[in-house]
């Protein structure tokens, strides 16, 4: 459609030109819009859509990413849990566009945690992805963390930002769950910090910790109202009262995590940046890749035999790993085989890895202790009638 007039004067002044000579809304603010400061969501898998390891991990008593990608549970001697991907079909979070959530259920309670015990959800970030906060400079930016949360418990809970590059310097924010078993949207603003820069590299620079319960070592000192202070564990969960570990009736769930540069409130928070499942999965692959979980004869890589008991397997990647990965073979008892065109030999263990940073291919030595493969032949490595067999490549922070 042709425009009858464009106001050139507005273009010169930087104001938004309006077709047909209109004089109404000429700025983003006047139009009720918010300028997003970053191009892509900083939090990966904030909508909890990707769960490569498992959609439900049971009997969890210790640290690790056990179900939903990028979501690390810090659990120290404080009960037993099921950590699962919860499908949402109704409620405010669902109506906001979220079909999945990360949920933790207490299955064995700890009614009286010892001093050093803790329970929290942790999200870890690379320093090179945090440079836009300009931390440690005179022009440092505030952090705005937003998320949907639901629990049977109500009351105040704490979120800790911990700087891993500067002696665990930290800031504590808080939110309040007002209604039990109801999805609520929370916004936590953390102060700008002119002290201590994040390293511009692939190392762990920032933890975001949602505290759910703890012993006395993590309570006792005033938080500092989102201000950055020298590390003091006594501050981390002070006044955090959810106490999810104390009863098997307790649960807590979260979705829609977003982190923005600068300070926002409910009235001007940029909308959550939904990604396609494929884009989300590729970003998760930077930290973890599971080659199994598909068909019963899924292929994991190809390569060449280097002895009667070992082969090099090369696996292509959708995204370069953050760092050279650790590798575990899942279900090696005949579940994965090396096939050289004549013989299938069961993989018994994983040997050395060869990976170069920022490349899209990884080479792994795989072993078949029973022999049976002939030195020099080409091979392929696949699951042997077992959809649960595969390799776990772990480059998490």
């Amino acid at each position, binding site marked *: 459609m042709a425009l009858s007039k464009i106001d050139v004067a507005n273009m010169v002044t930087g104001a938004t030109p309006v077709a047909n000579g209109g004089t109404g809304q000429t700025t983003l603010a006047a139009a009720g819009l918010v300028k997003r400061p970053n191009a892509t969501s900083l939090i990966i898998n904030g909508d909890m859509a990707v769960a490569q390891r498992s959609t439900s991990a049971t009997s969890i008593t210790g640290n690790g990413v056990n179900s939903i990608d990028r979501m690390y549970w810090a659990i120290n001697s404080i009960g037993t849990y099921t950590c699962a991907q919860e499908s949402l079909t109704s409620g405010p979070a669902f109506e906001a566009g979220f079909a999945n959530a990360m949920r933790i259920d207490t299955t064995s309670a700890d009614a009286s945690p010892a001093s050093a015990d803790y329970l929290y959800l942790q999200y870890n970030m690379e320093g090179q992805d945090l440079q836009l906060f300009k931390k440690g400079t005179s022009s440092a930016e505030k952090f705005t963390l937003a998320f949907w949360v639901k629990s049977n418990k109500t009351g105040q809970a704490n979120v800790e930002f911990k700087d891993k590059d500067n002696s665990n310097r930290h800031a504590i924010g808080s939110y309040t769950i007002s209604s039990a078993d109801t999805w609520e949207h929370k916004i936590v603003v953390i102060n700008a910090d002119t002290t201590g820069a994040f390293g511009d590299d692939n*190392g762990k620079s920032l933890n975001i910790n949602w505290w759910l319960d703890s012993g006395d070592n993590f309570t006792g000192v005033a938080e500092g109202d989102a201000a950055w202070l020298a590390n003091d564990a006594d501050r981390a969960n002070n006044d955090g009262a959810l106490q999810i570990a104390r009863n098997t009736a307790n649960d807590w769930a979260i979705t829609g995590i977003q982190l923005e540069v600068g300070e926002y409130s409910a009235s001007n928070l940029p909308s959550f940046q939904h990604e396609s499942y494929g884009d989300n999965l590729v970003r998760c692959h930077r930290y973890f890749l599971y080659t199994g979980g598909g068909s019963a004869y899924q292929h994991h890589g190809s390569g060449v035999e280097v002895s009667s008991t070992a082969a090099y397997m090369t696996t292509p990647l959708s995204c370069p790993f953050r760092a050279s990965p*650790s590798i575990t073979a899942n279900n090696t008892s005949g579940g994965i085989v090396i096939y050289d065109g004549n013989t299938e030999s069961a993989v018994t263990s994983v040997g050395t890895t060869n990976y170069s940073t920022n490349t899209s291919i990884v080479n792994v030595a795989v072993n078949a202790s029973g022999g049976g493969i002939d030195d020099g032949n080409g091979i392929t490595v696949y699951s042997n009638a077992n959809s649960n067999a595969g390799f776990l490549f772990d480059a998490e922070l």
Partner: protein
Amino acid sequence: MIQTVKKLNDPVRNNFEGYEITTIEGTKISVPLDEANKDYQAILEWVADGNTIAEAD
């Protein structure tokens, strides 16, 4: 949780190029020689606690 650690050699060059962790649950994890790898960092802490890495098979 680490139970034991041994060195891994590349099957062609026979050079020391990684570690194998065996966890207390019996899981075996191949770990590269990369300081940015969290399991490699865990091995360094495990050794600092007074534990010893076994030689390659």
